[in-house]
Each structure stands twice: as C-alpha cells, then as structure tokens.
C-alpha cells in the first residue's frame, strides 16, 4: 500500500499528459539534435581593452544613477565569461546592472602558442591592474570592487595581496580555491610523484582543455550521462532544454591555458600550497594574504565538487580583513553565478552586502 487510488478520469488525464510529453520529447529531441549552437548573452557590452589573452568588457549601464565604485569580475582563465550573463532572467550581470552597478568583466581569449609563456605574474601584475587602470580612465574612479569566480577569484586574491592599497576597495570571491591541499581529486590527478608537469608544458606549450576536463570528469564520471538522461526526461520542457543547451555550450567551450600559467598553478599552488603558507612568489614579490585588509565577501557552494568549503574558507581566516562575510549556499560550482535559484536566493544577498560598500 502506499499509492493513492486514482479515479478513471485522473488516470485518463495522466495518460494524456504522458503521451503528450512523450510526443514532445521525440519532436523536440529531433530539434535538439539539429539545432544550432545555443545563443548566450543577455546584456549589451563593449570591448574596452585588449591585451595579450585578456579582454576587458564593459556592460552598458541600464539605469540613470549607478554606484560610485565599479565592479570588475575576473573570469577563470580556463572558462569563458559569458557564464555571468547567460540569458535574460538567468544573468548575474543583468541583475547587477538593474541594481545600479557598473559592471566590467575581464575575460580571456584562447591563448596562442606565442602566448604559452604567460604566467601568474602576467595575470596578477599586468592584466588585472591594466584593466583597473582602463576602468579608472573610463569612470574617473580609482576604487574598484574586485570579484572573481573559481581561479579568477584566486587571481583576484593574489592581486589584492600583492597590490594592497592600490585601488581594490572590496573583494568578492565566488567558489575560490585558496587552500589547494584540500582539493583531493586534483591532488591525485597532479600527484607530484607521478605527474611530470614540465614534460607536459614543454611538449604542449598551450595546455588543451581536454587535459583539464579529464580531471573534472574523473571527479564526477556519471554527470555527463546522467545529464543526458535528465535532458531526455525533460525534453518536453522548453525552459529546461534552453538552460541545458546554454550550460552544455559553456562546459564544451572550456579554454586552453598558457603552459607557464599551468606550470605555476601546479607547482606553486597545487604542490606547494604556497598561497596559504604566505610564500607564493610572483614577479619577485611574495603574496601575503595578511596584507589584504579590504572588506571580503566569500561565497561558497555547499555541494561544490570542484572547490570545497575547506578549500575556499581560508579567505576568511588568513587575510588581514576585519570586515569578512561568508555565504554558504545550496547548489554546485556553477549555480553560484548562473541560474534562476541564484537569482532568487544569492544575488540579493550580494546586492545587500555590496551596495553599502560601493558608495
């Protein structure tokens, strides 16, 4: 016992609904297979700076009165920045623009072989500060809220540690690894005793995305298949399919990274965990987390299988900031920066925190 008795009419209704969905699944399934690439991007933007692999975009403000302090979001070097602006109603950028923020995104073009030499120093001592300088030129403001997602957050943190007092007014970190020793699967994948990073970098120059995607797939090998099965089940639902296609496109468009950056990431961050031990040397200087004294908002996803709470939490304890707030929210790695649940739950909290620190 356990199932409710259904009337003949209820049964007929349900059969009708399921047959309808099954038909839609088949028709839409065909459409899905023959469809062009999913369109992404909700908001108008302009390229305002270009340097090496770095591309600085400014999203066009949509309200007449905005906050004084502009917001610069640093994308992770291995992913495209449109994850922040997937589609109307699912766009963090759209949400922030409507609430009066002046939003910039530091995004990355796939590095060419002649850019294989770009290292951590290029990112934190050149691309980020040059972007901030360009933002100052455009807005007339020297202060900026620096935000970063995943490794973009790590780069923002390293920059803030190296250039304390140089224009970063607030720091917002989304799923940002600080303590790399707790990233168990990546530690296994890049085990110092067996992973010859020098050979990989010297042979390949630019590191193709497949090399990194392999590690992600190992951490969750069933996700891809299960995702396809969920897609088939929900093929009748246009919103689900649209969302799936956008996320699928984003995941498939993982970017290659410069070999030197990859080498430093493995040796200095994964193997030596140098950021946590305050011995990360970049461009001849040591990145001291204690030097970061600006307000920090640290955002962590509870079910993040890539950057766990232990990996991200040290931003709260090792920096010198006395104005730190942490938000641990339900969901996975990507759901912090995209998707309708973040729109309802998380982004209003960010607005509440950032608004009063952006005047």
């Amino acid at each position, binding site marked *: *016992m*356990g*199932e*409710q008795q259904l009337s003949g009419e*209820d049964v007929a209704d*349900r059969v009708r609904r*399921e047959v309808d969905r099954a038909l839609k699944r088949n028709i839409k399934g065909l459409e899905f297979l023959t469809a062009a690439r999913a369109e992404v991007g909700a908001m108008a933007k302009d*390229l*305002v*700076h*270009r*340097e090496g692999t770095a591309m600085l975009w400014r999203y*066009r*403000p949509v*309200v*007449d*009165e*905005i*906050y*004084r302090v502009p917001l610069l979001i640093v994308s992770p070097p291995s992913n495209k920045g449109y994850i922040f602006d997937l589609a109307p109603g699912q766009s963090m950028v759209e949400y922030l623009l409507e609430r*009066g923020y*002046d939003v910039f995104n530091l995004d990355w*073009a*796939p590095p*060419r*072989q*002649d850019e294989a030499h770009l290292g951590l120093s290029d990112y934190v001592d050149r691309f980020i500060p040059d972007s901030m300088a360009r933002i100052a030129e455009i*807005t007339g*403001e020297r202060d900026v809220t620096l935000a970063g997602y995943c490794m973009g957050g790590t780069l923002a943190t390293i920059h803030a540690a190296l250039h304390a007092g140089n224009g970063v007014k607030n720091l917002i970190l989304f799923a940002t690894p600080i303590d790399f020793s707790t990233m*168990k*699967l990546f530690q*296994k*994948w890049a*085990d110092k*005793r*067996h*992973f*010859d990073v020098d*050979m*990989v970098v010297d*042979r*390949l120059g630019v590191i193709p995305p497949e*090399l990194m995607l392999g590690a992600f797939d*190992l*951490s*969750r*090998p*069933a*996700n891809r*298949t*299960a995702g396809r*099965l*969920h897609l088939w*089940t929900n093929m009748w639902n246009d919103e689900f399919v649209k969302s799936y296609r956008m996320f699928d496109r984003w995941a498939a468009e993982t970017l290659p990274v410069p070999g030197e950056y990859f080498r430093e990431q493995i040796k200095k961050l994964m193997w030596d965990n140098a950021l946590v031990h305050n011995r990360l040397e970049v461009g001849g200087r040591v990145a001291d987390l204690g030097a970061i004294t600006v307000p920090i908002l640290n955002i962590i996803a509870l079910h993040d*299988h890539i950057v766990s709470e232990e990996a991200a939490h040290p931003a709260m304890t090792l920096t010198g900031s006395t104005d730190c707030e942490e938000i641990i929210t339900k969901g996975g790695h990507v759901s912090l920066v995209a998707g309708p649940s973040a729109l309802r739950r998380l982004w209003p909290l960010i607005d*509440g925190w950032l*608004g*009063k620190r*952006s*005047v």
Partner: protein
Amino acid sequence: MTDKPFDPVAAWADMVQKWEHEINSWSTKLTDNEQFGAVLGQATKVQLVAQRAFGEHMETLLRNLNLPSKPQIDQIGERLGAIEDSIDRLRLAIEALAGKAAPKADATPEPRRTRKPA
C-alpha cells in the same frame, strides 16, 4: 503511507539521480589511493608520446599528399587570431583618440555615480 500517486517519470528521474550519486561515490573511492595517481601520470605521458608520434607520422603522410597538416592549419588560425587582436587594439586606440579629440554627439551620457543603497 503517502498521498502521492505513482509517477513513472518521477521514479525514473529519481533512479537516474541515485545511479549518478552511486557511480560518483564509487569513483571517489576508486581514485582515493596513490596507485591511481601513478597510473594517471603514466597514462598522460603515454598519451603525449603517442600523440606526438602519430602527429609526426600524419605530417609526413599529408606532406606527401600535398595537403596541409593540423599544426599548419593551427598556425594560420593563430595568425588570423593575432591579426584580429591587432585590429581590436587599433580600433580601441583610434576610438580613444577620437573620443579625446571630439566626444561623439550621439554618445549615451554616462549615468550619475551617486546611487545610494535603498
């Protein structure tokens, strides 16, 4: 006892979710040892060596057929990418100069930066 009638689609979705969870947990256990790292490290090396050997072989074959190889196509792609980058930079520089000389009449005015939280 539950009030919910049996829903085969929900049951299927639930089953997929459980399967996904079990496979992922199994993978986590499987990869949680040093041997796994050793195998993976070795596999990466073998893959790179095989890739290189295959690439060299293909290059010879394609050269004999008077066809371009993948690295040559990549090189052309990179040169095109570099040209596009340069055009972007030039466009930005020209726009900056033009903006300084004479601000565009139809340019959207900058919003006021005076907003305060509600």
